């Protein structure tokens, strides 16, 4: 019964926001994904419905052997309710494209949410491994193991010159995207973030928002990843991202120091107001919540707020997302009801007495 198991995920914080590891105040998570295709089927965009079914059957067998089947959740995405698809997107277990596209497609999810494997996304296979904090070497070891296992069961599309062949030439070669998610509120506040992005682009690193390609940088979360996938080894691509992260962390710390030195009152005021709104609002949008939680998160890291822990804040970033709120309340809510429920959820988790106020009202 995959449905029951899917609901089990609502109780855990999700790998990418677990918030552990060195520099966890700035480095949120590490992620590597590999794009692979079977040699004997057209790419997904050109595949018939029958091809898609056969691709799914072939890969399902290979993917289920990746680890103990009891710790794997295999979901046929086509059969999933809209809110459950969105829920998986919010947890970074499937892409928005995978949630929204048509036709036979699936995802295999590790029970600990350390990896997910999408079938019939843009490529036949998109394997991704997630880890909290900066942990790219370990992430690579795990994804390499998964890839080797699947490789032993199927025949990948491979070219002696161009490497692993993908539906889009931007992924050809290694088929690998290495990314690190960073929380950079002070660089945003000091308007230096654009400068950082421009210098990253010069060395072929891409910057994306919270939900990947084309998404807005919600809550000051940014993903730094390699742009190039061909002509360099996996280790070289990993090292390039690995080497740049401490530099960006250093910029962010300098920006935070600058904000404190320049006007500690202004910074403290901004953080306190954000905290105040989150504790007292009666209706609040997802965007505003992300923005304010980002300020509060920085406030906690700078010692301006003392009665909050980072793991709780990380949890709130996730649980106030639209699908998570609906999964937690167990009912479908429209946007205005969600804003009310979100505000209630925030009050009850950020302010002990808010709960009492609510119960008095009821």
């Amino acid at each position: 019964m995959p449905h029951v198991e899917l609901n089990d995920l609502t109780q855990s914080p999700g790998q990418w926001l677990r918030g552990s590891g060195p520099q966890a105040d700035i480095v949120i998570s590490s992620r590597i994904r590999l794009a692979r295709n079977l040699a004997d089927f057209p790419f997904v965009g050109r595949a018939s419905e029958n091809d898609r079914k056969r691709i799914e059957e072939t890969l399902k067998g290979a993917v289920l052997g990746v680890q103990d089947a009891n710790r794997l959740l295999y979901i046929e995405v086509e059969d999933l309710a809209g809110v459950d698809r969105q829920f998986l997107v919010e947890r970074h277990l499937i892409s928005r494209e995978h949630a929204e596209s048509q036709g036979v497609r699936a995802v295999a999810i590790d029970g600990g949410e350390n990896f997910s494997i999408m079938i019939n996304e843009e490529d036949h296979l998109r394997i991704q491994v997630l880890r909290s904090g900066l942990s790219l070497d370990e992430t690579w070891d795990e994804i390499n193991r998964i890839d080797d296992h699947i490789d032993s069961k199927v025949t990948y599309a491979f070219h002696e010159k161009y490497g692993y062949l993908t539906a889009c030439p931007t992924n050809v070669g290694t088929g690998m995207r290495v990314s690190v998610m960073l929380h950079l509120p002070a660089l945003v506040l000091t308007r230096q973030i654009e400068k950082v992005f421009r210098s990253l682009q010069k060395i072929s690193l891409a910057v994306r928002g919270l939900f990947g390609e084309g998404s807005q940088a919600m809550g000051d979360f940014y993903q730094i990843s390699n742009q190039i996938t061909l002509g360099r080894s996996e280790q070289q691509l990993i090292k390039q991202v690995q080497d740049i992260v401490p530099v960006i962390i250093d910029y962010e710390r300098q920006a935070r120091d600058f904000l404190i030195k320049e006007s500690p009152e202004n910074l403290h005021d901004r953080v306190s107001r954000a905290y105040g709104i989150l504790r007292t609002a009666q209706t609040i949008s997802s965007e505003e919540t992300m923005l304010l939680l980002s300020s509060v998160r920085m406030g906690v890291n700078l010692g301006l707020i003392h009665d909050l822990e980072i793991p709780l804040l990380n949890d709130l970033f996730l649980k106030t997302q639209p699908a998570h709120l609906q999964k937690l309340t167990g009912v479908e809510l429209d946007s205005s009801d969600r804003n009310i429920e979100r505000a209630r959820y925030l009050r009850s988790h950020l302010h002990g007495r808010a709960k009492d106020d609510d119960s008095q009202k009821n």
Partner: protein
Amino acid sequence: MKCQKCDKPATFHITELTDGNPQELHLCEDHARQYLSQSGIGQAEPENVAAALAQQMAQHMAAGQVGQTAEELARLDQQLCPVCGISFYDFRSQGRLGCPNDYICFEQQLNPLILNIHGETEHTGKAPKVSAQASQERTQVIRFRREMQEAIAEEDYERASKLRDTIRRVEQEDENKPAQ
């Protein structure tokens, strides 16, 4: 060759095919970017200039090498992949390839595009257990399946059954793979 709009060397050679009449443009990187952004695409932040340019070219133009005439490009654009049946024009308008064999049959057009995107054209990373040659032979199954469907449609059952046997033989290779 100089850029048509300034004295810098032209590094982007664009053939505009959208109006039916091919028109050749030779531009430096700055002017190519300006030209492409004026054509209404790529308003979003380019993550990487080369990649953005290459993607846009792939979607709307043929990226040719110096010396290729517009007519040659137009002809190449209509050539079909014998395995999946797409043309390079289909790739340019959708931005996605049809099958692994496209990298072989459209190599002439794809190679400069790949060079623009990655700055390299040679894979140096991991390789699968199967050889590239075996992988390419396997891709031919896509063609056999299509031909089998055609044979069935034409009621040529003898040919269809021969093709079916060939497909089965190739497909069994995975089952014979030794367990890891």
